[in-house]
């Protein structure tokens, strides 16, 4: 065994102390007829070969593409300080701070995370992390049902499809989920249909526990969040805002427009994409919801000598204390990613974060102009921050051919939203501070080329020169 310390002599000494001759005797309590059939697994591999194998596997992934893919997970530059601090064993090889006297590092870091995210979201109560944005959104929906004692949640179709699916799974057959349609055309095309929201909220037979909208929404567009808050509250429902934390450096925070709960994906705060996780589920709420919020909370207190210290608190919400009456079953969370987000925010600072958000917006605008010049217009007219949808004839085929040219042309909307009308020819593209002018030029030129080649495509080739 590669990491074990025991020599033959050690094992013999322990066996002798126990008065037995073989470790097999310690497994005599497994009934003979239920003993395992053996383990058919690969041979143990020394680290030298194993490291080469892992490198080869990683090399089979293509991470060299010029990428315009976002859709809930964003490429950002993370100061090297973040990862260099994360690899300290004192952080990543500790566990939940059950013994506060020897866990003040983790406890204070969580308290600081709560404070930083309270500042970003404008909501005072922040849980110490959930699995990801989808699970946090699902927990938010359940909170709304518990708090209002109602059993129906409205989720906009412009919330990330994985989040909608996750909410549906968590609500199960006991609680109801209705989807809010999107405006089909006009100035507000691609945003949530607020007339439909108003109608559903007014149905006396189906009182609504919570309304869930994303800002920016999955299509990159900005929603009228203050109006949604008004409508939801007038009907006695809670308002759940699904947020992207970098955007909160410049966009109005949920606390300011009346959201009761904010949920979101913390990955953009210095966490690599790593094919789906581990990420950081952000969950924040107003003060009256403090006893409904699931997950760990850390509070400031003092020790016997009056020294300031930090401790897990309001534990009566949690599964190890309350068992079947707990607010959630969550135990292991994403603490190390909350730490990563805190270090990222501390290292980059408030002005740096604003620049990250605003640079992304500036690059996205350049991207929009370059793609329009290449004959690829936007799908919706409304305002966006750093992500938007464009209309490309034969989007799926073009997307595939662009990979051969070294370009990851965003997300094929028809694949991600198979049931959504009006996105058939859509690609969802984004830019961030790491997107360069060269990247944009290459993308626009390649797209123009492909459209020229595409039999059903527009004759857009002449527009491809001098796109920027």
């Amino acid at each position, binding site marked *: 065994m590669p990491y074990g310390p025991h020599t033959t002599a050690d094992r013999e000494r*322990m066996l002798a102390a126990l008065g037995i001759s073989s470790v097999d005797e310690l497994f005599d309590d497994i009934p003979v007829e239920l003993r395992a059939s053996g383990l058919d697994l690969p*041979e143990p591999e020394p680290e030298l070969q194993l490291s080469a194998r892992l490198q080869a596997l990683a090399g089979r992934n293509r991470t060299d593409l010029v990428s315009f893919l976002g859709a809930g997970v964003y490429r950002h530059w993370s100061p090297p300080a973040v990862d260099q601090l994360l690899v300290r064993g004192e952080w990543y090889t500790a566990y939940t701070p059950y013994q506060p*006297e*020897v866990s003040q590092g983790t406890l204070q870091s969580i308290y600081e995370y709560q404070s930083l995210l309270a500042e970003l979201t404008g909501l*005072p109560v922040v849980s110490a992390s959930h699995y990801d944005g989808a699970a946090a959104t699902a927990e938010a929906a359940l909170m709304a049902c518990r708090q209002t004692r109602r059993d129906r949640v409205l989720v906009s179709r412009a919330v990330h499809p994985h989040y909608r699916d996750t909410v549906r799974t968590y609500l199960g057959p006991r609680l109801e989920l209705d989807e809010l349609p999107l405006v089909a055309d006009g100035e507000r095309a691609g945003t949530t249909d607020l007339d439909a929201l108003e109608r559903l909220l007014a149905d006396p037979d189906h009182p609504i526990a919570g309304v869930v909208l994303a800002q920016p929404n999955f299509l990159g567009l900005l929603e009228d969040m203050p109006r949604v808050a008004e409508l939801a509250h007038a009907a006695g429902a809670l308002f759940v805002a699904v947020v992207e934390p970098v955007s909160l450096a*410049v966009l109005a925070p949920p606390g300011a427009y009346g959201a009761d709960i904010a949920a979101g994906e913390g990955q953009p705060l210095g966490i690599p994409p790593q094919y789906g996780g581990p990420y950081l589920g952000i969950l924040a709420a107003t003060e009256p919801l403090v006893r409904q919020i699931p997950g760990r909370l850390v509070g400031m207190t003092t020790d016997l000598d009056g020294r300031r210290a930090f401790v897990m608190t309001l534990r009566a919400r949690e599964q190890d204390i309350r068992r079947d*009456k707990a607010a959630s079953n969550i135990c292991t969370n994403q603490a190390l990613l909350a730490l990563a987000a805190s270090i990222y925010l501390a290292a980059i600072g408030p002005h740096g974060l604003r620049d990250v958000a605003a640079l992304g917006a500036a690059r996205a*605008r350049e991207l929009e102009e370059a793609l329009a010049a290449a004959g690829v217009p936007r799908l919706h007219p409304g305002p966006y921050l750093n992500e938007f949808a464009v209309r490309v004839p034969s989007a799926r085929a073009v997307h595939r051919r662009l990979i051969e040219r070294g370009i990851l042309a965003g997300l094929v909307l028809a694949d991600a939203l198979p049931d959504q009308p009006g996105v058939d020819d859509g690609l969802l593209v984004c830019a961030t501070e790491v997107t360069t002018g060269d990247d944009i030029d290459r993308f626009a030129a390649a797209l123009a080329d492909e459209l020229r080649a595409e039999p059903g495509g527009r004759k857009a080739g002449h527009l491809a020169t001098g796109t920027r």
Partner: protein
Amino acid sequence: MGVVGPRLQPTLDERSRPGRGGGKIPHAPAGALDRIPAAALRDTPPALPELNEPDVVRHYVNLSQLNFAVDTGFYPLGSCTMKFNPKLNEWAARLPGFAQLHPYAPDEVAQGTLQLLFELEQWLAEISGMRAVTLQPAAGAQGELTGILMIRAYHRARGDVERDEVLVPDSSHGTNPATASMAGFRTITIPSAADGGVDVAAFEAALGPRTAAVMITNPSTLGLFESRIGLLLDEVHAAGALAYMDGANLNAILGRFKPGEAGFDVMHFNVHKTFSTPHGGGGPGAGPVGVGERLLPYLPSPRVLREAEGSYRLERPGERPTSIGRLRSFVGNTGVLVRAYAYLRAHGGSGLREVSDDAVLAANYLKHRVAEAYDIPYDRPCKHEFVASATGLKKSTGVRTLDVAKRLIDKGFHPPTIYFPLIVDEGMLIEPTETESVETLDAFADALVEIAAEAESDSELVTTAPHTAPVRRLDEATAARQPNLRWRPMTGRQMPCPD
């Protein structure tokens, strides 16, 4: 000399000075946000702290030194399997090919990771004796929810809709009853028998046409193998219910017992316990779930599939309508799963069996030593962990398990899990794992024996411990009564940019 550093730290907010920091991100051009309606913008910037990088680094290095961790010492936290976290695995997860891969990357771009995930699923199925495995759940508790939701879907598909109860032994993890509630079931608690196993008579009395599932941790949280498991599983299935195995204690039985072979229908793995992925100060983990034949159709989507010509792909949305759906975004905590994959490759089948053999041998040896000074309520061979109790010590000296735990800190050790499982008076759940040397086990046992002696000779020394930690015991009551969960009210104060 304390087991962790002595220096408490100011908060980031207290370290902040307006004008510090910068130099990381170029300024955005003026007008970058011009096209965004004013109503959608923030009025005032968030009042985040302003620090220069050297201050940030010192802050987090100094804070880290206030933590006890596996990398700094023995961490026998029962039920958590705090084994060594191999460094190769940390390196592997950070390889750019793994770390920088976008989860919406098309399958043809993600073949390396998809192959890794596919192989990992196969190995976990082999280890557990299950038919198939999903890697999607982010942690053990989410794995439990996945399993119970699949069980619900199974019964509903058969029109068996009256089953609204889940049976859970009283020694179980709190996540089990909390999961049952989340999935809409009522929890029926089954008492334990005198030998620590499930009380069969009470179990049989509770089992019936309302029973949807039974959740059993095996070995149990007392560290004991459930020897009557064959009988219990037969009865569960005869009653039309399904059996869930909480795999938190899998580290004891690798290569010795396969839950799927024995008749369990579904189980979760805690890769941050059994397969050495780090605990991260509370997470992340990953909680893959294995299922037998009955639950195969209900696995969460997307699954990782291998095509006939050898390439890999993800299931498409809606491809398998019987699925319970998604538990989270994307495929799972892939970065954690890379580490688990490396661990399994490094060990192979023979190494895994040795892991369990050594973990069980170490636990029995340590139990034998701890018995010199403490009660052992269930005195038979344990698996990878065991429960000791300070009941006798408390009677004779007034010193409680909590005090013993705090005094262990002064002796250089992380305390075990205390007062769990709930059914043991003054319990300490001790799990040494296979990566601790016999010298460490002896030193820990010596410390516990010494503490028992101190309790007799100078009980105040024990009841006021720890004495060498950066803080003494905390005022948890005030923390809960007047919660202070952030450094100040959100002000959103204006801060001019320094450059």
